[in-house]
């Protein structure tokens, strides 16, 4: 530890760290565009430049190491002017259709321009319009708005290790694009949307379905229903400034009914259903043979990742549909019949913290009679826009319950929102199935927390169950390679979430990669699990009823037909 001087203030710095890291520790803000916390700096955008006494030019604080006694100025006139020039240059070939840009209010380039008082296009350069790629059901790529910061490329290559997009070409002609300039829908992109979360501009956005939905809400021929994922009410609450602990799903139910949805369902119920069905599948494989370890299949990006990169592991994937897929199927079968509405007159919407769920809903297997089970998927960001569009005042709402027959959920289903939650929920039920008894402590501490890789062994009766919980596809790739090399022989159950941290940090969440916020969401889910009584999926009375009245037994014929799906290898350029 030594001292450096910043803006005439003395602060501590660690040998080997960068100027930016020392500054952010004491709350001195320096603007960044290409910086990614916890990753090697690239110094691509130069917006974080600062003045260091004795240096000839300005230095990028994100990649410049501190030195003892260094004297730094972060906002001298020279620094401010240089940053302003950089912003002007970035804007000189950037479209100025901010009014119409879906990233407008979240655009980091736009806010920097505002902060630095850039109020006219100078130098006046014409921008070269590049083709917009709207082929993916999940992600829209608009290279004209790309500032080539490289964050999407890095998150795709270094965090997810998918490598679907890359810099192609050189100089002003550089574009971030899939291999051979082909479109996103036929690339190896798994639709996780982590690139959308890190993109500072409108170059990467979700493929919005909001307009399709608002069009249907006005129609009378269709009955429109909606389901929302376990983590959705949490982030909605944050956006409306509600205190954690308010009856958030209750308020969301009320809001969605005011918007015009005839039925509002909580996907957490279907998460319970997934836990029960998957626990049975797991126990069957344990007892009568079948591919082990079983891999969870809730995360559609992970499923596509296996189909593309590791087809030899497809038999290990649980054949269970995701909670969205299960509820979608049950809505268009059981619910349609019960409510006396033909499935073709139902318009089923899902609000998800996920861009890949948009892709999942388009999978041909997930529907009946050429009609998809889920008609449209929106992200949390689109849901927020929708709530504003319909003028809903959250503070004036009274909490309401979700609609029956899927109105009750256990906290196990709710835990699906965080990495480790699917494992915890499923293993609670698996323990009951294997031993006839509930787990002594329902809380399975060893699968909790935001670590990208957790491994543990649980004792269930006389069995030792090796469990791994992985989040982030880079970590998943590592585990698969190790399993292929003959390691992890004792593993029986593997949960994988494509997004680091799970759905609470999903690619469809509001644009804030603030780790504190993600931690708060996790803690909220754990606290909820501690505070309620119904903590296992198999004890959920509405789940029992659904099996009694419709599905029969878990893994039985009807359940297999409605709740299970198939996977197939995909041939794309890897």
């Amino acid at each position, binding site marked *: 530890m030594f001292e450096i001087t910043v803006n005439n203030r003395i602060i501590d710095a660690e040998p080997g760290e960068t100027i930016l890291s020392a500054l952010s520790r004491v709350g001195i803000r320096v603007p960044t565009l290409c910086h990614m916390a916890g990753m090697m700096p690239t110094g691509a955008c130069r917006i974080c430049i600062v003045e260091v006494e004795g240096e000839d030019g300005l230095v990028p604080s994100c990649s410049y190491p501190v030195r003892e006694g260094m004297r730094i100025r972060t906002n001298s006139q020279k620094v401010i002017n240089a940053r302003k020039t950089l912003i002007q240059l970035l804007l000189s070939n950037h479209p100025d259709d901010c009014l119409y840009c879906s990233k407008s209010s979240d655009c980091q380039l736009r806010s920097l321009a505002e902060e630095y008082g850039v109020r006219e296009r100078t130098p006046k350069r014409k921008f070269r319009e590049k083709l917009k790629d709207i082929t993916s059901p999940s992600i829209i790529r608009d290279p004209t708005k790309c500032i080539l910061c490289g964050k999407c490329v890095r998150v795709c*290559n270094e965090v997810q290790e*998918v*490598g*679907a*997009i*890359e*810099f*192609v*070409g*050189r100089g002003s002609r550089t574009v971030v*694009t*899939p*291999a*051979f300039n082909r479109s996103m829908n036929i*690339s*190896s992109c798994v639709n996780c949307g982590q690139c959308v979360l890190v993109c500072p501009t409108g170059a990467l956005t979700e493929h919005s379905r909001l307009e399709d939905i608002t069009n249907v809400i006005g129609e009378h021929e269709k009955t429109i229903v909606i389901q929302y994922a376990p983590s959705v009410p949490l982030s909605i609450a944050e956006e409306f400034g509600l205190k954690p602990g308010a009856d958030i799903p209750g308020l969301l139910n009320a809001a969605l009914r005011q918007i015009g949805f005839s039925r509002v369902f909580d996907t957490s119920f279907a998460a319970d259903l997934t836990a029960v069905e998957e626990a049975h599948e797991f126990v069957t494989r344990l007892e009568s043979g079948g591919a082990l370890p079983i891999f969870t299949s809730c995360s559609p990006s992970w499923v596509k990742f296996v189909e593309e990169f590791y087809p030899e592991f497809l038999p290990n994937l649980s054949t269970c549909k995701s909670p969205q897929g299960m509820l979608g199927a049950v809505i268009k079968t059981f619910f349609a019949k019960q409510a006396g509405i033909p499935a073709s007159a139902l318009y089923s919407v899902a609000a998800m913290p996920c861009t890949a769920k948009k892709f999942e809903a388009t999978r041909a297997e997930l529907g009946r009679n050429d009609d998809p089970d889920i008609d449209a998927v929106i992200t949390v960001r689109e849901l927020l826009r929708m709530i504003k569009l319909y003028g809903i005042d959250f503070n004036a709402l009274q909490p309401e319950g979700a609609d029956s027959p899927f109105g009750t959920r256990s906290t196990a289903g709710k835990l699906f929102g965080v990495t480790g939650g699917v494992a915890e929920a499923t293993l609670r039920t698996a323990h009951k199935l294997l031993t006839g008894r509930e787990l002594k402590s329902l809380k399975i501490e060893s699968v909790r927390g935001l670590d990208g890789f957790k491994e543990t062994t649980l004792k269930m009766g006389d069995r030792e169950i090796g469990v791994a919980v992985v989040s982030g596809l880079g970590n998943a790739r590592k585990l698969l390679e190790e399993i292929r090399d003959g390691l992890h022989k004792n593993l029986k159950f593997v949960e994988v979430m494509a997004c680091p941290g799970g759905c609470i940090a999903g690619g469809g969440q509001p644009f804030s990669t603030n780790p504190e916020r993600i931690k708060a969401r996790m803690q909220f889910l754990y606290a909820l699990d501690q505070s309620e009584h119904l903590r296992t999926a198999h004890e959920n009375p509405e789940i029992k009823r659904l099996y009694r009245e419709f599905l029969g037994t878990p893994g039985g014929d009807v359940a297999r037909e409605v709740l299970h799906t198939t996977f197939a290898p995909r041939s794309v*350029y*890897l």
Partner: protein
Amino acid sequence: MNNDKLEEILNRYPPSREHLIAILQEVQEAEGFLSREAIVRIAARLKLATGKIYGVATFYNQFRFQSSGKYHIQLCRGTACHVKGSSAALDCLERELGIHPGETSADGLFSLEVTPCLGACGLAPVMSVNGEIHSCVDEIKIKTILTALRSSAAAGGDEL
């Protein structure tokens, strides 16, 4: 490209990323261009994303992604040639051939490439056809050369 040939090139290098450029150069040398198949196989061998290989290759002017035409035209865009009007020459070539640098005409006759200095600045602007240098090219000269090449090809001949 012949699979054995590609295999032979790949086998001569340890499968690590620092050999990428050398491999790309050898493959292009053997094949005349970098085919999708070759890029996919190089990616698989080096355990890199196909997009990464394509990204690296497109960074360099040297690499082509279409097979060369019967007549491969290289136009120098070095400083001296630029001063002497190679920009107008490039416009003329693009217009006459209907292709951009890096592309091959639909009839497979011509391919176009812009190169850095060819080292014949005294003859600027310089263009080469299958390695044969043409000096002081302007619009008229280019049109004459292209007409000659076209009629030569139509007559089934290989030479100018």
